């Protein structure tokens, strides 16, 4: 992993500083009951997880949108997380406790792409927890709506 990242970095040195800086920034921090206690994941590391696309409407936008990202349970499995809930924290310090069961009951993804475009920090990016709201009636509830954390940057597994 490290070797490959190193090779990739060497290959991309020539492309440009900004892009390089973006790709090496830590995009998501995971703390709590995971293997190693702390994980800092870069964009590349997140994109290396199997990507999943779901189509759903949201409560803050009009119409149906296509979201692409990785399954939350894939991430937790990848990190060897043990616990029953995850505290998701946004950049504006918005924090919500989400039961881990949600990720196994539903295909909850962490989206980095909406409608074919990468999510950005000045909108709802770079990461947005998206529930497959249209596929399950149970998810069309305000008690699930507040779990849609955007501008996500940290997860704490408890």
């Amino acid at each position, binding site marked *: 992993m490290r070797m490959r990242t190193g090779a990739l970095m060497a290959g991309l040195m020539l492309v440009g500083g900004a892009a390089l800086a973006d790709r090496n920034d830590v995009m998501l921090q995971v703390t709590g009951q995971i293997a190693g206690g702390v994980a800092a994941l870069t964009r590349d590391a997140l994109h290396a997880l199997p990507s999943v696309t779901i189509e759903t409407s949201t409560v*803050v936008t*009009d119409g149906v949108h296509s979201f692409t990202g990785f399954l939350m349970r894939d991430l937790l499995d990848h990190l060897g997380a043990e616990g029953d809930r995850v505290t998701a924290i946004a950049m*504006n310090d918005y924090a919500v406790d989400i039961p881990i069961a949600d990720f196994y009951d539903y295909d909850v993804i962490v989206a980095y792409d909406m409608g074919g475009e990468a999510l*950005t920090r000045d909108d*709802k990016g770079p990461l947005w927890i998206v529930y497959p709201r249209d596929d399950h009636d149970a998810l069309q509830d305000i008690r699930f709506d507040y779990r849609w954390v955007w501008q996500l940057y940290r997860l704490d597994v408890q």
Partner: protein
Amino acid sequence: MKRFATPRLGLILPMIAVLVFTVLLLFSLIRMVEVQNAMRVEAEQNMLWVFHQSEVAALRLTETIALADLGHAGTDDLALRFDMLTSRIALLNDGPQRRFVEQIGFGADLTALTRSLSEIAPMIDNFTPGSGARLRDALAPFARFFGRAANMAMIAEWNELGGRLETYRYQLRQTIASLIGIMGAGGILTVTLVLSLRQSRQRNRLLQQERDFSGLLISSSGEGILAVDHDGRCTLWNGAMAAMVGKPPEQAVGRMLAEVAGFFDVVTVRQGIKRALGGETSQLTFQPLFAGDCDRPLYVDLRFFPMRNGGAILGAILFIHDASDRHAAQQKDAQDRDRLEELVSERTRDLDNALQRERSAADLYRNFAAMVSHQFRTPLAVADSALQRLIRRGPRADPNEVAERAGRARGAIAGLTRLVESTLDAARLDAGQIGARRVKCDLAEIIQTVCARRRDAAPDRPIKVRQATVGQTTAFCDPAHAEQVLENLLSNADKYAAPKTPVSVMLLGDGESLFCDVRNAGPSMDDQDRQQIFERNFRGANSVGITGTGIGLFMARNLARMQGGDVTLQPGGEGVTFRLILPRFTEPQS
């Protein structure tokens, strides 16, 4: 019972209640579905929070600018805080949020702020310490806008919430009213149900009582009662029936009637049941009914009735009455009557006989008188004239003439004596003074004896005796009577036959009796004489000029009958044949 004025009201009221119940239930259901659908919190109702977050983002950007002015914050912090504010503005410009902002009248303000954001962006990028005041001034409208918008959002949301709650309350009130109505209708239905249940229970009880009473009537009836359905299967069988036929109800009910007892398979009974099933009533009297183990039959009267329900015939009902006593009484009556009739006829016969005897006696005397006057006069006249001649001749008469004339007189007197004897015999017979002493005797010998005596008395008359093969010739009779009968028959045959013609005597016989036929060649008799020939004092047409009393054949027959035999006149043929019949002697069984 009569809780409702009319039965129609009793039916209409619950129907109305059911209708009301249904309508109200439907109405409250619709209302509740409406409430359920309305009870959904829309995201834009969280606008107060959105404005608060936006205001916090604006204030934190302002704060970061102040810190950056003092060199306590870097450009990265500044960029992050600016991005946060930008994202809030972007959120507000998204569909639902944008509509709410326009609804509360801040659409133009938001557009202006969005535009000013693009002017602020270069100032953030090119931030240098000391330039913070200008940036803060540019950001001032943001916090003000968010504060005012939050205020308006609160008012709008509360208004909306108040309105919504009022609608809910109104709808719930309607639902409550409907539920009260439903309860009322339910109450009416319950009361109706309870009433009708009670009524039905009461009716059931009455019906049960009636049925029990009918059952009691049937079971305690002295008459046997049974019912059959159209297939001939027994459906009812009471105790009296069980006692008469000797089969308990459990062996009869449900079975074919013909299988229960043979009595019901009798044609007349079967027809009665068939007629009753066809709707016709009928009855039978004194039918013999043999109960299972009894030798003597019961005599029963049967009445068949169709069992009707409305117009339909459900089956037949049969009442059986034990009429044995009546039958016995009737039988006894009949016997008494028969005996009485017999007694009467016996008496009548006795009286007739007595009358007959009286008449015979009268006839006897009259005939006797006639006979005496006629028959006795002739020999008397013969004797008288013979004696007169003797007296006239006196001494002139030679001894031969005297002997001849005296002999003639004596013959006439002897004939007279015989007449008197036979008359006396008949009188003795009438008086019952003659009896028969029956013993074993040989009839052939008797015939020989009588014929020999007859030949001596009338040497001119040939008598032929013949005997057929008859085996034993022993008869069971009184030999004296038998001789007299034969004497009579032979004397008669001699008397009425032409001179010199033979008289034949023949002995015959069959298994039980011996016959002795005495035949002469005399002229045959006409029918009337034949019928009367055995009567006392009767004298046939051919007896004119021949002395006789008309008693001989009468005596002969009576004597023969006295010994268990008879004397008959054989029909047809030449001459006249009389037959003496006597029973054969049979060895007494030891």
